[in-house]
């Protein structure tokens, strides 16, 4: 008598049911508030970031209306200055970094074969803190206490002498909110990638998106303390009279710039590097071959991560630092183009020697090539001290950074959203609408931002609410403003595509693209427990060829939440780690921390008194619950 297939199948069925019982969230609204499922948190993170993107984009459109004509009076200087400050701050702090981290929060645990992210409750906490910080700054803006000193907040303009009231304090504290959120995720991702990989996923088999997120997370860990320090120094100068930035008392306005840009330059690579990983996933899948030059690609990412910390002075070339020092930063800023060049070669080589098919994700990647490489060229230009002294703080730089941020990060992000949307939702987005969106975005983007190169060279500075006629700036500004409407059209197409697909999109199946990485080995969308059994990895494209069996290891409990920890380099199984149940304490902790942060905008005692409820909720969070399983070892 042989064990029949149906016995095995019903065993598996019972296993799946047990896993569902163990890993499902509570139903309804309480389930939504208490979930620690990285997929649910990741999805809401992405959606929230896209909402902030749209709001910041609308602000930009309003600014472009004001600038469409010289000496316009659609917006006065105060409102305009608040708008560009909000636009930049929202895009950088509330959209660009969070959305990239959110995609990673969703995809990385699946891509490395794990049941959940490393610190699920911290993950939930990170979302709430991010949301509350975003709500705070939006409310401040609507109440006319929004930031007014740009997203860079230079002192003395942002000091209490020149920025009265609480505007700058709300802004500086918003930074604290978003940096806490980003740091939490960074630690989670490092732990997930270095301790939770599927057995057999050695360092040389880690997918390039996971590599890029590992390096990004390390960059976040080392860069964000700089802005937390600088913004805390600013708040304390304004609130309790410290003199960090006050030249009259031994301080220095340039200290702000050094600390801010020590963060600020890695920040743009923190935004851009996840996109590099997304591109690798897309190019690999749609070339139907592994990325050429894996080792070179990883080394290029590492080199970029390191070099990014050595460039910040190129934002300060006009401040009067010693010329020889400036020249060093020119050389370093040019050097960082080399690893980018390596990556571009390897992607093109992959397409060249593969069997590429042009789908919407790949189309967005092609858009990346056209736009980011142009932005990279203008980046080489602004890296040069003498040339930068002309174009710094002009529309040339505005053009440059929009080409590298939109071309280099948003286009790949769109490609990644089209790529992973079937996994997130189980449905396909419309290819036809995707192509329409792409072309509207590509054309609209160039119409908006290319003329800005010319405007900068012709003398138009940044952050001006109006400009005189007769300098030749009128027509390029009008063209740029018209382009912004085309971009808006593309966003509407995207929104329509998403909402339509959610209702009536074609069902996707596990692996609609025939992609090689582990997230495609499970259902679309994945069940709460991600994988029934732990997948084992034998190469860097675990699912290729597509028709082979997936090797798995059994043995993780199905009646309690467990994840597998493996060793950092060779991914040998090491520990069965108990994972937390859904919990309301991350939300309470985020609320308590919000109270502390907002209180301390108005009084330094907020830090002291606000710490008490925070300590209480954090203690309850970590206190062992009666329901937690008792683990082995010790008594």
């Amino acid at each position: 008598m042989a064990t029949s297939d149906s016995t095995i199948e019903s065993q598996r069925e019972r296993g799946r049911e047990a896993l569902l019982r163990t890993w499902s969230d509570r139903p309804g609204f309480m389930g939504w508030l208490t979930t620690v499922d990285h997929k649910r948190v990741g999805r809401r993170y992405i959606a929230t970031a896209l909402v902030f993107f749209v709001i910041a984009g609308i602000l930009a459109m309003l600014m472009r209306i004001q600038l469409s004509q010289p000496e316009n009076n659609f917006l006065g200087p105060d409102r305009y200055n608040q708008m560009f400050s909000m636009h930049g701050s929202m895009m950088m702090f509330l959209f660009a970094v969070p959305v990239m981290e959110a995609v990673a929060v969703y995809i990385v645990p699946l891509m490395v074969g794990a049941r959940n992210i490393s610190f699920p409750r911290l993950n939930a906490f990170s979302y709430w803190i991010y949301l509350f910080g975003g709500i705070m700054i939006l409310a401040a803006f609507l109440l006319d206490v929004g930031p007014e000193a740009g997203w860079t907040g230079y002192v003395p303009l942002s000091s209490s002498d020149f920025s009265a009231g609480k505007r700058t304090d709300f802004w500086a504290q918003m930074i604290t909110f978003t940096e806490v959120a980003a740091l939490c995720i960074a630690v989670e991702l490092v732990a997930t990638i270095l301790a939770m990989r599927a057995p057999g996923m050695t360092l040389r088999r880690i997918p390039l998106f996971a590599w890029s997120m590992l390096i990004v997370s390390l960059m976040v860990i080392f860069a964000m303390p700089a802005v937390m320090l600088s913004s805390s120094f600013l708040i304390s100068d304004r609130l309790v009279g410290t003199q960090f930035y006050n030249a009259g008392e031994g301080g220095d306005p340039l200290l702000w710039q050094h600390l801010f840009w020590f963060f600020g330059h890695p920040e743009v690579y923190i935004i851009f590097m996840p996109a590099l990983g997304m591109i690798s996933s897309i190019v690999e899948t749609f070339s139907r071959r592994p990325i050429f030059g894996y080792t070179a690609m990883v080394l290029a990412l590492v080199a970029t991560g390191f070099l990014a910390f050595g460039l910040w002075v190129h934002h300060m070339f006009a401040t009067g630092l010693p010329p020889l020092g400036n020249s060093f930063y020119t050389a370093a800023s040019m050097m960082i183009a080399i690893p980018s060049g390596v990556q571009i070669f390897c992607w093109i080589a992959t397409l060249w020697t593969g069997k590429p098919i042009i789908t919407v994700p790949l189309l967005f990647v092609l858009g990346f090539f056209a736009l980011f490489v142009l932005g990279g060229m203008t980046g080489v230009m602004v890296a040069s001290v003498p040339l930068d002294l002309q174009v710094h703080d002009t529309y040339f730089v505005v053009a440059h950074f929009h080409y590298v941020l939109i071309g280099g990060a948003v286009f790949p992000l769109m490609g990644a959203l089209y790529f992973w949307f079937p996994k997130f939702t189980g449905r396909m987005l419309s290819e036809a609408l995707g192509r329409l969106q792409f072309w509207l975005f590509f054309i609209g983007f160039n119409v908006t931002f290319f003329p800005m190169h010319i405007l900068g060279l012709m003398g138009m500075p940044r952050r001006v609410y109006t400009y005189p006629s007769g300098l030749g700036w009128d027509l390029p500004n009008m063209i740029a403003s018209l382009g912004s409407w085309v971009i808006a059209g593309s966003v509407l197409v995207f929104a329509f595509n998403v909402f339509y697909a959610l209702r009536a999109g074609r069902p996707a199946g596990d692996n609609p693209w025939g992609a090689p990485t582990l997230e495609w080995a499970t259902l679309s969308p994945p069940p709460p427990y991600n994988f029934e059994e732990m997948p084992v990895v034998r190469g860097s494209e675990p699912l290729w060829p597509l028709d082979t069996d997936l090797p798995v290891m059994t043995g993780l409990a199905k009646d309690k939440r467990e994840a597998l920890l493996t060793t950092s380099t060779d991914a040998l199984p090491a520990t069965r780690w108990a994972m937390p149940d859904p919990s309301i304490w991350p939300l309470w902790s985020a609320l308590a921390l919000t109270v502390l942060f907002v209180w301390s905008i108005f009084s330094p005692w907020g830090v002291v008194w606000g710490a008490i409820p925070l300590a209480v909720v954090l203690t309850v969070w970590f206190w062992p619950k009666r329901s937690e399983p008792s683990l082995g070892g010790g008594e």
Partner: protein
Amino acid sequence: MSRAESVVGDLSELPDYNFGSTSLGWWGTIGFMLIEGMGFVLAIGAYYYLLPYESAWPPEQSPPSLLWGTLFTAVAIASEIPNAWIKRRAKNYDLPAVRFGLVLMTLVGVVLLGLRAMEFTALNVRWDQNAYGSIVWALMALHTLHMATDTFDSGVLGAIAWLKKFDGRKFSDVADNAMYWHFIVWSWVVLYVVVYWTPRWM
């Protein structure tokens, strides 16, 4: 999953806790240390950045007085002895020793906080007098914040040791907490040199 699977191994015999890099608590602690360590590095950088802007350092005041700072440093370094001891005992699952050690480390933390409070009164400068005062207070405040949170952590862990079931993961948490205390002590030694001795060597 619709893909066919073939079973190649079984994980059920793996332990459900561990020490070091195959324990997630360890990774979280390392993450904190890196973040806060970088904060210290940058704040120390700011200290030395501001220094050349003054012709004398401290610009008007006398340096922080050595008594409380040195006493604090001595006690902190001495606390490494029970700290290292509790880490070893945790790895041997010695619950009575861990219970005693956690209470002891919490008390040590409280004593150090008291000494720190005395240090603040003897810095010889206010935070709002000049940039020197601001950065000295910032360095001291940053370290105090991390020391206070670790003392609180030790207290909570101690309470759990006495009141709740203490399993393998909790022993691992004790070891991680001890690792973090290393960071607290030795980051302070660096800060001590910066705050108390830079003005005396200038």
